């Protein structure tokens, strides 16, 4: 039983990272109708910035805050400078541009920091925490708390603030929103800023576990994409639930089904998703009649 509880918590920890990255993908998908293939590499790059700040002597949590700020400004700037010029181009063009960003960030990180795997300091205590007689990894619990707080704040922002409401309207109804005085282009840029922030937080949370290297987010982003599709690619709640299910699911599969083990977890998870999508093509939280007009 103890073992099961530990496995579930550890699954929720990775799941909350998938959830965050999936949410970042959904935010941009809703606004632009495309998958930002550079999302994982943006997260990786900002994680390197956090690492550099810590190397230069900044305390871990200060580096965390500074990185979040850099990520936000960087995400906004990226949209304004790189995405905006192709905003009206066919969606395939935009997808190609995000693929270009993928290679650019990957190459730049390798060029600045090298391809050698680095360890990343954990911002959490290293000794386990006792909860109800079971020892849980403080890293896992910390990751869950930070990710859920981030997701909660983002949800509050979208539901309760005027700017969040305007961003939702701009994503769904750009023409009508402009007539109400909403600067739709800037709302899109803000969306990129937020997605970059969520990515940076995920990167910092997962780096102590997967270690720091330019390819560190590539498996994560595949899971995040799977989580988004599982939840319904247009649904932020779906992305979060999908991520958590996936995290717990693969952890349990990998631990308790001997034939699967670590190597086949990704394949097994994807197989499950294919089955779910055959039953519910729009995803768990998607509407069956989603249509972009």
């Amino acid at each position, binding site marked *: 039983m103890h073992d099961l509880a530990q496995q579930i918590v550890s699954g929720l920890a990775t799941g909350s990272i998938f959830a965050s990255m999936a949410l970042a993908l959904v935010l941009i998908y809703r606004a632009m109708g495309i998958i930002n293939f550079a999302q994982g590499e943006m997260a990786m790059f900002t994680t390197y910035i956090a690492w550099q700040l810590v190397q230069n002597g900044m305390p871990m949590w200060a580096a965390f805050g500074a990185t979040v700020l850099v990520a936000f400004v960087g995400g906004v700037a990226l949209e304004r400078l790189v995405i905006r010029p192709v905003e009206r181009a066919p969606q395939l063009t935009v997808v190609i541009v995000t693929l270009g960003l993928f290679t650019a960030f990957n190459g730049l990180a390798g060029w600045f920091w090298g391809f050698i795997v680095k360890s990343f300091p954990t911002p959490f205590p290293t000794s386990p925490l006792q909860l109800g007689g079971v020892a849980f990894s403080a890293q896992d619990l910390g990751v869950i708390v930070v990710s859920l707080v981030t997701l909660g704040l983002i949800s509050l922002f979208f539901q309760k603030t005027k700017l969040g409401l305007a961003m939702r*309207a701009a994503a769904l109804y750009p023409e009508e929103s402009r007539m109400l005085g909403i600067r739709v282009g800037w709302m899109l840029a803000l969306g990129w800023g937020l997605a970059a922030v969520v990515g940076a937080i995920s990167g910092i949370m997962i780096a102590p576990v997967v270690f720091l290297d330019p390819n560190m987010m590539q498996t994560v982003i595949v899971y995040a994409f799977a989580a988004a599709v599982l939840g319904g690619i247009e649904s932020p709640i779906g992305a979060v639930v999908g991520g958590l299910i996936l995290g717990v699911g693969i952890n349990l599969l990998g631990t308790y089904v001997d034939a699967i083990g670590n190597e086949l977890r990704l394949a097994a998870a994807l197989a499950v998703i294919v089955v779910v999508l055959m039953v519910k093509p729009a995803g768990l939280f998607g509407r069956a009649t989603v249509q972009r007009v």
Partner: protein
Amino acid sequence: MAPSEGALLEARDLHARYGEIEAIRGVDLTVARGSIVALLGANGAGKTSTLRALTGTIKTTGTVVFAGRTLQRRTPEDAARIGIGHVPEGRGTLSSLSVWENLMLGAYCVSKRASVRARCDRVIGYFPWLAERKHQPAGTLSGGEQQMLAIARALMLEPQLLLLDEPSLGLGPKIVRDIFALLRTINQQDGVSILVAEQNATVALAVADHAYVLETGRVAVSGPSSELAGNDRVRRSYLGY
């Protein structure tokens, strides 16, 4: 060109095109401060295009002077910010958002919380049912209710000028009469000037002070509503008697 006395909006030589198609070809039009102006014309005459040209929703040439200021590069965002509320063709309902969210977005450019609240009370005074149904998704309202929501939302901006594009479209005669009566009230009580595009000339001429009739992208006839209602050509083409 010297601006005419008392004009809130003055457009000169407006042209607009969709690719090869020239939708309007040299439209001149004036909305006097505090007045209701009707923009009449058959299908495809260029009513929607004229309203879009005024707010810069489509590519245009020509000059537009609003409240004494020449609008150089027109965009719909800026039009809203300087006080032009636009109720577009098809009502522009943000259907998956709630009635309340639609209203709040109408006040997006109003930064003072107190004015938003005051405006809200005023709008709910006109449409009391909005308060009861504020959590309902706007897309589930009936056509007439969506038209009223669109007007309410535009009023949240505290506009000096309200542009409406065929508010009667698809609605029954009773609701159409109610809506036009309401436009009259808004015009008189809040001092909002109104430019309303309509195919339903009878009902539009009944409330408008002044009217323009568009034909294939040009102003064919214009004048005070009472004169146009008596004009033979207008009667035959648009009033059907």
